């Protein structure tokens, strides 16, 4: 029991050391967006035409070079600036389709190109569909 508590304590501290600075950087980026990007621009790109905005947000999510948890402050700022929740959904979900390069290389190498490509395509399709469905449901 003591060993387990100690393990949780040590690993939590390691995670905090890794996550907190990156989370601060993500918040800094979101504040910069808040200061310099107008609500009109966000709405015109990510809010006006959802047929384009949802796939676009998925692609933006995929290419964002930040860890998963750091997407939230940026997505929240975009939401406050006029991006709908469905776009936020696809941005956050799209962010995890393509992982870190080392993870993708491992998946590609271990399970084959066809499996990797099929999963990538299916995930992208489902995330986009999920975005449209959210627009109807919520």
């Amino acid at each position: 029991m003591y060993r387990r508590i100690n393990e949780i304590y040590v690993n939590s501290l390691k995670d905090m050391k890794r996550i907190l600075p990156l989370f601060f950087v993500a918040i800094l980026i979101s504040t910069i967006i808040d200061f310099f990007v107008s609500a009109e621009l966000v709405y015109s790109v990510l809010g006006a035409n959802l047929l384009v905005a949802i796939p676009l947000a998925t692609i933006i999510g995929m290419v964002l070079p930040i860890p998963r948890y750091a997407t939230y402050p940026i997505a929240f700022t975009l939401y406050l600036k006029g991006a709908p929740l469905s776009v936020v959904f696809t941005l956050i979900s799209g962010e995890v389709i393509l992982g870190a390069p080392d993870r993708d290389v491992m998946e590609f190498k271990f399970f084959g190109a066809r499996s990797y490509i099929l999963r990538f395509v299916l995930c992208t399709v489902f995330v986009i569909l999920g975005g449209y469905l959210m627009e109807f449901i919520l």
Partner: protein
Amino acid sequence: MIFEILAASLDNFLKFFLIIIVAIVVAQIINSFLNQYTIETRLKNENNVVKSALLGLVTPGPLGLYLPSLKVLKEKGLSLSMIATFITSQTLVGPLRSFIEVEYFGAVFFTYRVVFSFFSAVAIGIVYKRLERHLEPKDTSNNQSKAKR
């Protein structure tokens, strides 16, 4: 301007500081109970996409940790559909992010994402089951046919 940006960022960061600390500790507690060995054992003989998707949903930590084990399990006979289902649900939702997500976008948004990710993972697993024999990497299938001979 720079000072304003830094002050606003710090203010925002402090608002979420406590929730991130709680999220990290809870993720580590889950991790200590549901570690790599437990996941491997549960996944080893699995042939149900629903169970595999559920297992992926509750599995904490980066996927990279589990990929080598999944490769070994695949060599021992775990199907590609189970692996694809697990990977999909594991990456789409995670215990650490759940706290941050609820804090930012609310419980309804989070619930929708969890439910949708679960069904997506199951659907992907079903597609993989149908296409399984076409998806095996070439070198593996060659080795298997050589072994059969």
